[in-house]
């Protein structure tokens, strides 16, 4: 479809939880009443000004919102574009995850739940969940793939320091997908007392919609800030990395109705939209890396946060109607992107965001003179140990 003719509005899914043909609620019968309860609790809370004020106060006074925009003068000049970053890396806990987690933890309390469950890949959502749980007095259990526990040990320690219990997922690929499986199994058993705090715009309805709403603060702020910075104009391109896709949905949501190219960058080894086919896992119908029999394939990415074979259903929808595009970059390009932003701007990005940097650097010759807004969804501190191993003595 011609991108010019693609729909320009944000969808609100109906009772069937669909974005076009994607989404839905493919969960065990045990969880259906919990999803229905959550849907009405969220809708009530979202239209309750007291809840919104409480959340806004927390986002401002605790998370440090609004996050700023930073223009990359050096890298922009080097690449021949105007490059501006939305600095979600400067939020408390170091990523955009806190936006949704504060909302979900407030909602959990409002619903009378005493315990939250979360899955995590890179550990950013786990840390954010543990943080919100500590702040709001909730018990917190985080499931994390055994492989990820190994490569993100700093975040594991952070979660423990914050009082959360971290449980290794030892099945399958022992990464994010398996952490989601374990979290869902916990939820099936503990549904009456526990709230499942999903880390991305994925899972059964209403999660993809709800998490997008909580993350839409990124897009709302960014649109306004960008217009103030750039004489009332919108960016030519908005870029974000995509694993499950919550930071991308957060910033895209502010620009879906603008005359702006939306680009979600996937890892080559986890390109659900780019290389997947429609399938159903983790409660949703969406693009999925799978074999001919529907077995979900293991993703392989240098960044634990994007090591996921699926993607949020709204991204599948945006891709299917041609409103957003989903190119991918490989691990080597990501490493270069990671170094590039650090050297040019003095900002060490999370490996997840280095995917967006890598795509911009690669695309630069084709987009000379354009304005590019990139969501810098997290900082790279957590990745430094891993990069030290990879880069070793190669830095001079």
């Amino acid at each position, binding site marked *: 479809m011609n991108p010019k003719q693609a729909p320009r509005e944000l969808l609100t899914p109906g009772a069937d939880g669909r974005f076009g043909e994607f989404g839905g609620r*493919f969960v*065990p*019968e*045990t969880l*259906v*009443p919990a999803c229905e309860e959550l849907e009405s609790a969220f809708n009530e809370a979202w239209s309750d000004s007291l809840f919104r004020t409480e959340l806004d106060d927390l986002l401002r006074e605790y998370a440090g919102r609004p996050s700023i925009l930073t223009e990359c003068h050096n890298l922009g000049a080097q690449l021949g574009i105007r490059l501006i970053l939305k600095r979600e890396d400067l939020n408390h806990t170091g990523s955009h995850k806190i936006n949704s987690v504060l909302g979900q933890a407030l909602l959990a309390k409002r619903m009378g739940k005493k315990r939250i469950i979360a899955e995590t890949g890179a550990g950013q959502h786990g840390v954010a969940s543990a943080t919100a749980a500590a702040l709001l007095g909730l018990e917190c259990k985080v499931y994390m793939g055994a492989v990820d526990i190994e490569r993100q040990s700093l975040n594991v320690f952070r979660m423990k320091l914050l009082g959360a219990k971290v449980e290794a997922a030892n099945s399958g690929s022992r990464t994010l997908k398996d952490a989601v499986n374990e979290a869902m*199994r916990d939820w099936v058993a503990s549904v009456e007392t526990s709230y499942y705090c999903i880390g991305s715009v994925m899972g059964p309805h209403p999660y993809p919609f709800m998490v997008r709403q909580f993350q839409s603060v990124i897009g709302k702020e960014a649109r306004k800030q960008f217009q103030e910075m750039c004489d009332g104009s919108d960016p030519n391109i908005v870029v974000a990395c995509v694993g499950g896709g919550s930071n991308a949905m957060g910033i895209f949501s502010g620009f879906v109705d603008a005359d702006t190219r939306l680009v979600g960058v996937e890892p080559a080894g986890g390109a659900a939209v780019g290389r997947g086919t429609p399938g*159903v896992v983790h409660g949703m119908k969406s693009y999925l890396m799978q074999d001919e029999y529907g077995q979900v394939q293991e993703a392989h990415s240098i960044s634990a946060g994007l090591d996921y074979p699926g993607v949020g259903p709204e991204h599948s929808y945006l891709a299917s109607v041609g409103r957003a595009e989903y190119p991918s970059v490989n691990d080597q390009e990501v490493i270069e992107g990671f170094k590039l932003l650090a050297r040019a701007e003095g900002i060490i990005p999370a490996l997840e965001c280095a995917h967006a940097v890598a795509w911009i650097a690669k695309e630069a010759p084709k987009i000379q003179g354009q304005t590019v807004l990139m969501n810098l969804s997290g900082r790279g501190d957590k990745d430094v140990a891993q990069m030290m191993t990879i880069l070793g003595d190669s830095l001079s």
Partner: protein
Amino acid sequence: MKFAEHEPGALETRLRQMRDSDRKILVPYITGGLTGWIDAIRGAAANGADAIEIGIPFSDPVMDGPIIQMASERALRDGATPISILHELRGVDVSIPLIVMCYYNTVYRAGHTRFANSLREAGVVAAIVPDLPLEESAHWCESADSSGIETVMLAAPTAPDERLPRVVDRARGFVYAVGLLGVTGERTELATTAVAMATRLKKITDMPVLVGVGVSNAAQAQQACVVADGVIQGASVVRRLLDEGADSVAQYVGEVRAAIDSPVSSNR
């Protein structure tokens, strides 16, 4: 209690007859593609199983605990596919009904009609799709109904009273009462929810009601059968197949059969 309005299929007719003649129904679950699985089906059938539930292994079985997860991983590693499992089933010479349990992506990927037809061609009479709840089930049920495959619906302890009749209405074959809040696996005691769930269901339907998930040994099966029309046993069967082989499954099914055939004494 409400009488079912649909025409009972082969499985339901058979289970109703058993229920009406006071025979408690025993359905062991066996992971397809696991070493010895065909022998385990034969052994179970010869030792008192009334139907067999065959699990098609899936990469992400969210309703399953450690034992069935391990069995699924092992079967997949050994190259099992839905096609290889259904192909092998065609050659199984047992006279009891065969039911398939699979996660929805297996069905979706194959295509509803194609999958339903492939079940029928393999001699399977019913399907259980644990991550396809009522609200998402219409397309599959339509294909299954027209291929003569009975879709068993699960009823969970979390369902409010107004929901249960809707689930039961769509159920074919029997109603699967989920025995506890949790995934499949062995527990030391039968959860109180197991009998409670069977009681709730028996009040609203004349279909056979079988309890599964967390029915872990012969004594627990006997306890569940005080109210339920029968039981489904998964992890306790699969663990025996994994650890000891098909003969152990046959022996275990015989033990459970004997237990549910002798009612719980009233002075206990």
